[in-house]
C-alpha cells in the first residue's frame, strides 16, 4: 500500500471511529456482518452502482452507508477524483483496516462470547 493510500485510509477510518457506532456491535460475528454490509454498500454508492435494499436488514445497512458516503464526498473531496477501480481498492483497504481494529486485532475480550 502506498503512503498516500495509507494516509487516505486513516482519514476515512478516523471519520468512522469518531462519528459512527455501527462498527462496535458487541460480538465479532456481528462486527464482521456490520463492517461488510455497510462498507460494501458504501463502496457501491461511491461507485454509483445499484444496491438491493428490499430486505429491511440490507436497508438498515444502506442508511448508514448513505450518510457515510455523503460525508466522505464532502469531507474528503479527493475521493470524487478517483476512478471506480481506485475507489474499490481504497474501500477494500479500509475494510481490512477496520476489521483489524475492531475484530482481529481488538483487545475486547467479550467479542467471542457465544450469546448476546
Amino acid at each position, binding site marked *: 500500500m502506498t503512503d498516500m493510500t495509507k494516509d487516505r485510509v486513516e482519514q476515512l477510518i478516523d471519520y468512522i471511529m*469518531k*462519528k459512527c457506532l455501527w462498527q*462496535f456491535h*458487541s460480538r465479532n460475528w456481528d462486527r464482521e456482518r456490520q463492517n461488510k454490509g455497510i462498507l460494501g454498500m458504501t463502496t457501491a454508492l461511491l461507485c454509483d452502482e445499484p444496491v438491493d435494499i428490499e430486505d429491511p436488514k440490507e436497508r438498515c445497512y444502506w*442508511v448508514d452507508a*448513505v*450518510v457515510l458516503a455523503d460525508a466522505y464526498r464532502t469531507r474528503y473531496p479527493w475521493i470524487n477524483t478517483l476512478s471506480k477501480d481506485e475507489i474499490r481498492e481504497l474501500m477494500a483497504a479500509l475494510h481490512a483496516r477496520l476489521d483489524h481494529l475492531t475484530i482481529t486485532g481488538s*483487545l475486547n*475480550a467479550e467479542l467471542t462470547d457465544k450469546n*448476546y
Partner: protein
Amino acid sequence: MPYHEFECSTCIPERKQHAVVKAPGEDLTSCLPLGYLNTIPGSISERGCAYCGAKHVIGTPMKDVIHISHGPIGCTYDTWQTKRYISDNGNFQLRYTFATDVREKHIVFGAEKLLKQNIIEAFKAHPDIKRMTIYQTCATALIGDDIDAIAGEVMEEMPDVDIFVCNSPGFAGPSQSGGHHKINIAWVNNKVGTVEPEITSDYVINYVGEYNIQGDQEVMLDFFKRMGIQVLSTFTGNGKYDDLRAMHRAHLNVLECARSAEYICNELRVRYGIPRLDIDGFGFEPLSASLRKIGLFFGIEDRAQAIIDEETRKWKPALDWYKERLKGKKVCLWPGGSKLWHWANVIEEEMGVRVVSVYTKFGHQGDMEKGIARCSEGALAIDDPNELEGLEALERLKPDVIFTGKRPGEVAKKVGVPYLNAHAYHNGPYKGYEGWVRFARDIYNAIYSPIHQLASLDISKDPIPTSHGFMTPEMISDAGLDEAVRASDVLRPYTGKADIITPLREKTDYPEFPRRQSAAE
C-alpha cells in the same frame, strides 16, 4: 500497552490494567483497559449492584406499573425520588416505591407469603394500575424464594393483572450492567409477543435505550411525530408496560443507549428480523444524521430534513454563543456507561471544550472502544475508578468541569472543581437541539459561576474582599473574547423557559400523513 498506574493504587497492582492514556500513535489494538470485571477487593468502587441496574435503570422508568423490590427495605431506598426519569402520567413511578420489607424472621421462615400479601395490597391500594414488576434482591435470592410461582398464583386469582418478574439479585454480575443484561433478556423471553398492538402508521419503531431523563424521550417523540412515525414502545423511559409487550411488531429498533439495551435489540433482530439502528440523540450533527437515517429507512428523508433545517436555524446561534465562551475548557467526561461515547467527540466539535479524561463505572470494553475511538489524543481512560483515583486524576489533569454522577460530583466540588450531573442532568432535557443548547448553558454556568470566587476562599485564613462585588459570569467569560464575537448580533445566549416539556405534552398540531393504501387496508 500505555497503561496508567495511579500512585494511590500501587498497593492494588491489578488496577494498572484498568487505566490507559491515548498517546499519539495508539489505536484500539494497543490501547484498551480491562472492563466489566468484578471490582478488585480493596478498591472502593462507585458501581451499583445488578439489582440496581435492572430495577433503577431499566425497569422503573416504565410509567404505568407498580414496581416492587422483594427484599430488605434498604435495597429500594435509592429508588425513591432520587431519579429523574419523568413521565407524562404524573410521575407515578417516581411518586411511589414499593418493597416487601423482608426482615430476619423471613430469612429464617421464608418470605413468599409476605410477597403475596404485598402484591395484593399494592394492587388494592392502586386500583387503576394493573401491571407490576417484581425484583429479586440478594437476600430473597439466597433463601430461594420462588417469585415466579407467587406471581403466577396472583395472576390466576386476579385475571386482570399482569406481572413481570426480574431475577437479577445484586450479586448477579460485576456491576449494574449485569442487571441491564438480565432484565433485557427476561423481558424479551417473557413479555414480548404477548400483546398485539394497533398499528397506525406505515412507519413503526421501537425507541430503545431511552429513559426520559428530564424529558429526553418526549423531545425525541416530538420529532418522530412530526415525521409521522409511530413509536410503538419506548424501552423504557415514559414507556407503557403493554406497549413493551408489543415490541415484536416494529419495523425498526432505534437504539440510543447500547450499553443498557443492545441485548433486547439484538434478540429482536435474531427472533423477529427487526433491524437495529444505533443513533445519537445528543449534539446537532449526530442527531441530524440520526434523524436522517431514520427518514431514509422509511423513505421519508424530506420530513427529517425539514426538522433538521428548522431546528438548526433556530438553535445554532445559541449553541455557538456558548462554544465561543467554552473553547479550550478542559472536561473530565466521567459518566456511568454510554455517555462517554455519546458525548466524547461531539462536545469537542460543537462546544469547543477538550476532553482530557473519560471513565466508565460499569461500561464494558466495547464502551471503552467507542469512547477511546472518539476522544482526542492524550485523554486518560479509566475503568471502574475508585474515589482516590478520581481525586488523583483531578489533581493531575486540572479540569475546568467534570460530568459525572452526584456522588463523585460532590467530591469534585470539595476540591474546587465544578460538576454537572451526567446521569440525571442539571437543567435538562439535554437531547434534541434545544436540549443540547441547555447542556451548553449548564456547562457555561458551572464553569463561570460567581460562586467559585467565594468557594475558593478559606474563611479561616484568606482575606475576604469586601470593597468590591463579584464578577458576573459574562464579565469572566467575555474578558478575552474578540470584540466581533462579543458584539455579534447573530450569537445569543439561551433564554428558553425552565420547563420545555409541558408544552410538548399539550401539543396537538402534528401533521397528518395519508397512509399507503395497501398498508392501511
